[in-house]
């Protein structure tokens, strides 16, 4: 495990996010302070409505803060324009979603290529797919692959641009336990080999054991931060 450097990748201060639904205001985040460090594997836990997805979306440039600061290295994402956020996602962030969000009309290789074609310094698509153990499935379309395979394509697609952060929203949510373990192994492998800062949000507490740090969110606030003294291997996780 690479030790956290002193310089955080993300530095979040007094972050709030308020959704206005007609007359009602929903406070999704109520003043969050958090640092994420280079190369660490973070699991964020929380019930639905705890604000974890909102936090991830803001980190990934999919949503904007209502107030507070979100520093990615020396840039405050809270002040970025829509076009700047697009560039931010394009250059620095890899996403993995619960429902994979692959492009059904493209093969595994092409689903990765669609990202590497617009990235600055990507790896080759087949290289990225080999990292997640899919070197045999390069030319299969999503419809020809299992859920676990599709999710690993999504991981390959996320890491192929050599992103600085990998953000995963319930990556095992749609998978059975055995397949989920394989996906988590892939994520951990990438994290260790490339040193990509990885944040996984989940409501599945079992996953927390493989993290460097576990952050619990509750009601829009950080309830608890816990550093694992020893990290479990994904293989030892059960749910």
């Amino acid at each position, binding site marked *: 495990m690479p030790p956290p450097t002193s310089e955080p990748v993300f530095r979040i201060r007094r972050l709030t996010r308020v959704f206005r639904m007609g007359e009602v205001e929903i406070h999704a985040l109520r003043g969050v302070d958090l640092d994420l460090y280079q190369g660490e594997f973070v699991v964020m836990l929380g019930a639905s409505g705890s604000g974890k997805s909102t936090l991830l979306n803001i980190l990934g440039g999919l949503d904007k803060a209502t107030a507070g600061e979100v520093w990615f290295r020396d840039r405050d994402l809270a002040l970025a324009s829509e076009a700047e956020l697009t560039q931010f996602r394009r250059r620095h962030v890899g996403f993995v979603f619960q429902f994979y969000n692959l492009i059904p009309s493209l093969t595994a290789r092409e689903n990765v290529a669609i990202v590497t074609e617009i990235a600055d310094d990507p790896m080759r698509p087949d290289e990225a797919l080999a990292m997640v153990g899919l070197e045999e499935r390069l030319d299969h*379309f999503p419809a020809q692959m299992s859920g676990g395979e599709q999710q690993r394509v999504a991981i390959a697609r996320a890491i192929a641009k050599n992103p600085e952060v990998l953000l995963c929203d319930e990556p095992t949510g749609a998978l059975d336990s055995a397949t989920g373990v394989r996906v988590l192994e892939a994520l951990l492998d990438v994290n260790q080999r490339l040193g990509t800062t990885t944040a996984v949000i989940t409501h599945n507490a079992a996953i927390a054991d493989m993290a460097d740090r576990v952050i619990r969110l509750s009601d829009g606030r950080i309830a608890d931060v816990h550093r694992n003294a020893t990290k479990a291997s994904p293989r030892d996780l059960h749910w």
Partner: protein
Amino acid sequence: MRALDRKLLRNLWSLRSQGLAIALVVACGVATFVMSLASLDSLRLTQQGVYKAQRFADVFADLKRAPESLADRMREIPGVAALETRVRAPVRLRLDTFEDPITGLAISIPDGRQPELNRLFLRAGQLPDPDRGEQVLISEAFAEAHGLKPGDQLAMIVNGRLQRLTLAGIALSPEFIYQIRPGDLFPDFSRYAVVWMNRSALAAAFGMEGAFNSLSLTLSPRHEAAPVIDALDLLLQPWGSLGAHDRNDQLSHRYLEQELEQLEGMARFLPMIFIGVAAFLLNVVAARLIRTQREQIGVLKAFGYGNLRIASHYLALVLAVVAIGSLTGVIAGAWLAGLLGALYQDFFRFPWLQFRLQPATAVLAVAIAGGATLAGTLSAVRAAFRLPPAEAMRPESPPRYRRTLVERLGVGRFLSQPSRMILRNLERQPIKSLLSVLGIALAVAILVLTGFQQGSVNHMLDVQFRLAQQQDLTVTFVEPVSQRAIHELAALPGVRHAEGFRVAPAILRNGHREHRGSLQGYQADSRLFAVLDDQLQPIPLAEGGLMMTDHLAGMLGVGPGDMVQVQIQEGRRARLDIPVAGLVTEYVGVGAYLPQQTLNRLLREGPAVSGAFLSVAPEALAGLHRRLESLPRVAGVSLRERAIQSFRELMDESVMVFTLFAMALAGSIAFAVVYNSARIALAERSRELASLRVLGFTRAETAYVLLGELVVLTLAAIAPGFAIGAGFTWLLTRAMETDLYRVPMILTADTFALSAAVVLGATMLSSLLIANRLRRLDMVSALKASE
């Protein structure tokens, strides 16, 4: 309100822009249908109304001169209800403000009174004072062309003598609803006038005191025209009759009938195409729209709603859209029909216009458009029903894709991933892609169909006036004169070349088929006139027989080598059998041609001519016609270029306006189709597009994936659209064919370019609107659930 009804209203609201686009197609189809049929129906109704109110005669006869006493004998013919004699005189007019030669027809009315038959409608002023011989009425079209009003002065030359006239009023007659100079192809309102004056004054000027040279009559109920005509011919033959005839050979009525027939052809055909295309598109679009509702249908079924409830729910939704479109279409169609009717009044000088929209027309239009939409809806709803609710609620299983043909051919490596997505999407659903292409192609086709007329009219004018007739001036004589007159004309200053022609009125028969027209004798070696074969190459006139237009040959049912019975309608009224020597191609009129010498010989006369073609130095043209006018035996002078020009102006005003309406409707259909395709594609693929945005694709890059498909579809549709449009046009030209014109099927590059441009413009506009929607694509929610 029940929850399902509330859902219906909200659905309608959320689908409003697509619903409006569908309503637009319904409206355009219905509007074209209503516009065409209601305007035609109104013209017909007006024609009948005017004929009845103005007592339009049933039978007409013109002759040289007969004593008035003959009138009573004619009134005794069984079947004659009312009969009125009158004097008609060819005249020439002069206005201080107008250089060109003006010819006209002066017709007598009882001194100071309305005629009994063919009553005049006074638009302005009043009837001439019975004691004022210089007071006249003038036809409205001519008065409008020159801005004349009651009290204005003009000069008229009758029988070579100049007379000063005062306008007492401006009038319209059922005899001149289509006001055209005999022998002309098109109306020329500024150079042809009808003048009505007191009988005593006109008779004095034309040497017809106590006599008449024209009559008209109405038939008693349940009497046929034919026996009356036979009896009249018998009575009138000694008096130089040209043969009595019924309305079918009355010039205005005949042209009006043919114009209306042509309009009917168009009015029945064009809206059928429009509404047929609209129906097809509605079917496709409604089906696709309902397919996007598949999961909701599953949920409703899971709650225990029955198929019938759900089906009626969606039908109600589509019915609301159809209702909006139909109502708009009927109102717009009726409004356009009114405008169009008013425009046709430039051609058809009806004193008034009666507007009628038959409920059946509107109902039929709505039934066709609505039925097609509902059928599309039902087929999609039925497809949704076939699924068990659990399956319908799940999103459709990930579609299967494969490499496209283009890629398998090895071109694939040059494609970016987004380009691959476009190609594979198109190829994965070949039926859907084909239907989209067909839909857009049909939009292109109706644009081609509506745009073709301009090219055809120009071609028609070109053939008639540049290839077939090349004279600058045509002179017609009051009656046939000796060939010597041609030499006199040739000697006039500015005349480069003059050649005579002989035209004899005649009835052409083959068995029971007959055509009342004329034999036209031209110089065998003419430099100014040519008949053309079907390749538009000039062919020589045949010594031994008639060259006739293919259209006339078709009417008579004869071909080259067959004999035609010809009854000459002047002089000794010879009956001749003449063989058909060959067929010629003409778009206008029904000509039968032979060399002048042959015609002279058949008529047993010397080298007589009825008129002359002149080729004139342009600078001498202006002076020459004044000179020609002063010649006593000249009945009329017409200028070729002016005739073309005035016809074009007329066409621009009326026919082109119709084309413009149709173009706008076709353009709207094109837009609605393209927009709907794009909107549905957006709905179907919003998740995929949102994923691309999340992965860091810019808006423009994301739009490329969606709109690229649209552009490919549009481009692919253009060539088939041209082909289908050409097919439609061919059908339309067949539907519009009359004795008067055969509109040639000429599709110019302009027409194609304009059609393509309109559809591409519609695609651009849709793209802009869709791109705007892409801005609002919600990335987060698209990723959350699997829809």
